[in-house]
């Protein structure tokens, strides 16, 4: 499990929360954890943010850990070949 404190993603503002995560990637942390346990569904905007997070994380060699994503959200990421870009728990 990553040591970082997970950044909670709210159901009502998934995309904007993910933008905040993206901003965090500019910092010095080598690990970032995101808590998806309150998110029941993601839309195309959220997907786009996650793709960008994956790209930036790879460039900066940061590990992004997603906690608590439900299987429906996980399947969306799987269909888009994004699961290999993150680590998952819960």
């Amino acid at each position, binding site marked *: 499990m990553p040591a970082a404190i997970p950044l909670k993603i709210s159901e009502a503002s998934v995309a904007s929360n993910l933008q905040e995560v993206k901003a965090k990637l500019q910092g010095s942390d080598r690990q970032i954890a995101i808590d998806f346990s309150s998110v*029941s*569904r*993601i*839309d*195309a*905007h959220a*997907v*786009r943010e*996650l*793709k*960008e*997070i*994956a*790209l930036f994380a790879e460039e900066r060699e940061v590990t992004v850990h997603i906690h608590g994503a439900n299987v*429906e*959200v996980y*399947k*969306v*990421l799987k*269909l*888009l*070949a*994004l699961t290999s*870009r993150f680590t998952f728990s819960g």
Partner: protein
Amino acid sequence: MIATDPGERVEPKPKAEGLSEQRIAYLEGLVKRAHTAAAVFTQYTQEDVDEIVKPMVLAGLENAQHLARLAVEETRLGVMEDKVIKNMVASEFVYNYVKDKKTVGVIRHIPGRNLVEIAEPIGVLFSLTPITNPTSTVLFKCIMAAKTRNAVVFSPHPKAWRCSAEAVRIMYETAVKDGAPEGVFGCVESSTLADNAYLMKHDQVGLIDATGGPGVVKAAYSSGKPALGVGAGNTPVYLEKTADLKTAVVDIIISKTFDNGTICASEQTVVIDDEIYDQVLKKFEELGAHICDERETEILGRAVINPQTGCMQPLAVGQRAIDIARFVGLSVQPATKLLVAPIKGIGPDHPLSVEKLFPVLAVYRAKSREEALKVCVDVNHAGGLGHTAVVFSRDEQVIRRFGEVINAGRIIVNSPGSIGALGAVYNDLVPTFSFGCGTGGGNSTTDNVNIYHYLNIKRLAQRTQNHMWFRVPNQIYFNRNAVENLRQFPSRCTILVTNAGMEQIGHVDIVRRFIGTKTHLHVLVIPDAEPEVKVINQGVEALNLYKADQIIALGGGSVIDAAKIMKLKYESPEADLEYLAAPFLDLRKRVVEYPNQRSNRAQLIAIPTTSGTGSEVTPFAVLLDKDKGRKVTLADYSLSPDVAIVDPQFVMSMPKSLTADTGIDCLTHALEAGVSSYASPYTDSNAMQAIRLVFRYLPIAYENPHDEEARCMMHNAACIAAMAFSNASVGVNHALAHAFGAMFGVPHGRANALMLPHVIAYNAAVPTKFMPSPYTQGYTAHKKYATVADLLGLGGTTVDEKVERLIEAVKNLLDRLGFPRSIAELGISRHDFEKALPQMVNTAFADPSWRSNPRMPLMTELAGLFQQAYEGRAVEKAGLALVK
């Protein structure tokens, strides 16, 4: 540089021949958006989807006229008013079909089969749409895609892309407004063949849905992607003399002039019976058709059909009849709506016999019904295979025959072809704008393409158990003097089948005492050996000669088996014994059927004189076919005797060796039925009781043959064990014993005894291969053996210990009965045994007995078991006996 969305790895791209980098980026963008949308769409519920679809349908209806006008302006094809109808059908009628259908999650329960069907979207569809129905096809496909949670990238016909793109835009904006994922529909502007080739091979496209000409369909199917290809037709129409002509002619005109004949299901050649031909043409003329003369037909054919390709000229497609007439130089009335061209044959010499997507209709005068049907077949095979056909007739036989000889996915009866094929207007076909043409048309389906073609349907298959049974004769009389019950069965003529020994020791006389004086009794003495065909035939002759109504079988298993087969052949003389002995895996699914028609009837009463085979209650019979040098095993519950009389007075004089052999056969039946993969609580109760009786009474019956109680209980045990294995079958012990016994002429019980301890150990071990069986929960053989050990009070605390003690108890019993404990002890040399081993292994593996064994035997394991049986006790002492 190929643009990719951020965060995505660059996947290998399809070949992009003839495409600029900018064009590739454009196409990639369309697919990526659709791919993301499709992934997001997977999270939607049925309610979400239905809330999206309904506004889309309303938008389609609201824009029906707008889109129709655009389509006619852009394509210069068809009739605006008809295109409005098409757009409305594509919206309203399709919605009416899909609105209550489940397309998300569980879509169907099939309780009787324990199946649940679950919908899985396909993902991204690449959809080609035609010039002839450029907006209605888009509306139809968008509604279906949204209903099934798929995204679509459209590639409209290049001469119709603007109107098609407008239809996509309307559907997209409405869908997204009501919650559909962003990017769910996209449209390639001004697509090219290179665009289509690129997209057809794109990794992220899940299915190609190609509605269009043969070229497009062929390209779709050649792409290597799953495809729904729906192509050209050539609709034959049979106008038969019993038809309602007024309706038929109007229907044909409606259909053939609808949107100027652009629907590929519209009528192409009408084959008319001679008797009504003139009348039909007159009606066409009265209703606004121009009937071409021979010269006009020739001019028309040359002009509207390309002489090089034999296909219709694109310039004529979707044009008005009057415009076509003017174009080719025919003089027709200004209100002419259809050009009717009589032709005299089908094929290249008759250009108008092919598909014509414009209001030109070929007609053919048929001299007979057979000729009419043949000409329709010719039209069908001239480019219309699998598509659509039409028949007008009041004669159901004609309609049925037409349906049988014509290869078309839609055979429209007494209604217009084009609108009929669309479904839901003139009939109950599923509404569609894509006609599957089956393999005849190079397509994967003959269906009207619908929502279910846009889904992967997954099936949850719950574990099921076929019903089981417990079948035994409905009358079993047992204990001493049970034979007196023969009085209950009056008969006009009874054949008593027995052997010479039974006569000599007075058993036949005992039976005779209880046969009524009015019964004519004929005693048929047969050899005391497995019955041969010759013996069966003798018995059947006797049964026929006396017209017997009852058979009493008095003897051991061979006599009772003979009587069973005699009864079968007497009641059903046509029964082919070799055919009936065909192998099977599951009795319920067996290929051969035993005869149920009976020309005679005779009740079979079985009185066993040994305590082992249990043939008095089993559905099996073994026949020796000497000519072919093999045994034939018959198995069917119709072979079971009607009455069993288990009277111990007939076994009191059994010699010791026979007592031991048959007793161990009985024990093997019970142990094998007990661990069988077909075992049930019903068979278990019988198996366990039989085992208990054998362990208690067999040693006594063996050592003190005159002990009436022991004889009686062993006689009952044999019958009870047989009830168990009649319904649960036996196992690998019997397969080994059959093979070994046949090879070396060793009695069945003795052969069983040689294998039994080794087989128990084998079955109790963890199998190399488990036997597939829906009836058992996990592997239970070792536990069932442990239960037997408990029943016998053998002690032990663990399952392994109990199994070991059961094996020891079996060995002790065999010792007490004086059995040889190894094949070697029988005097069979190692050389002879090794020589016979491969054949024995093959025979044992071919034996059906092991198919209910709890452990599936490998051939090497069968060989191992034979080897153990050969060495027997000597090897056991060395600790090598158990196959683990």
